[in-house]
């Protein structure tokens, strides 16, 4: 039963579990606390920052949290 309440995700390429009903905003906050400079792709679609708190992750979701680094 406890088990049912968790979802299996792929976050930045690595497997990760999260509580059911976790929002994207909650998930991102565990990865970065930068207020800007971050973008999120949910299953290869960009989710604007404004939508992070309205979307809950689902089992099997693939989430990528990216930022700018030196390059090019």
């Amino acid at each position, binding site marked *: 039963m406890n088990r049912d309440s968790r979802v299996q995700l792929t976050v930045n390429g690595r497997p990760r579990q999260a509580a059911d009903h976790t929002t994207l905003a909650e998930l991102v906050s565990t*990865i970065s606390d*930068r207020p800007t400079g971050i973008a999120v792709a949910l299953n290869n679609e960009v989710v604007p920052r404004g939508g992070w708190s309205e979307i809950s992750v689902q089992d099997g979701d693939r989430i990528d949290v990216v930022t700018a680094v030196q*390059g090019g």
Partner: protein
Amino acid sequence: MRPEAADPLVIGDRSWQSRLIVGTGGAPSLEGLGRILAESGTELTTVAMRRVDAAASGSVLDVLRASGVQVLPNTAGCRTAAEAVLTAKLAREALQTNWVKVEVVADERTLLPDGLELVQACERLVTDGFVVLPYTNDDPVLARRLEQVGCAAVMPGGSPIGSGLGIGNPHNIALIVEQAGVPVILDAGIGTAGDAVRAMELGCDAVLVASAVTRAADPIRMARAMKLAVLAGRDAYLAGRISRRYWAEASSPYEGMLDGMLGQS
């Protein structure tokens, strides 16, 4: 009387005084990067998009903000049009800019652009409202195609990224410049200041350097060398060089020579 003031680099609806774009890759540290950017006088610099590394301390974005340099995200590392498009969209969301330098490379050994994927990526990004600056090869036909699909500039490589081999085919760069209706930015392969001057003398509108500066023995000094090189090359291009001659041409007059003074007198 300050000609630079009257000769800005214009891409799309923006303009800059500096014609040097500095890539941030390869800088020894974020602090070093800040000094490089300052010394180079650049106003525009590229960054790559990568997954957040929780262990990273500091952010290149903080350095850029402190430097007052505008950011140009790239799609470095992408191998397909789809990857490049997604990366561009992530960059737009993260950095709040619809400008993107599009890179779609074909393999890791040469990092040469894949022309077919590149055109597709650019077409889709232009349609989606991006200001697109593609890293392309030195093929004049591909450069023209990229302009036709709406790119705001073209960025032909002089030689493979990071190779330091300079401009492998100056004739092709000249052909691209001659036909282009958008700015031409020499990208990739610059090894030293002489290469940057050469690019500008061929008529390029700007030069992008990264490794040539950040991996030089003294990056700060090389940053300044590149700043000066781009200015020198631009001036030389506009000044109109003398033509090449097979024979010599004296710069001193023949009249009034002392000939006849000695020996034969």
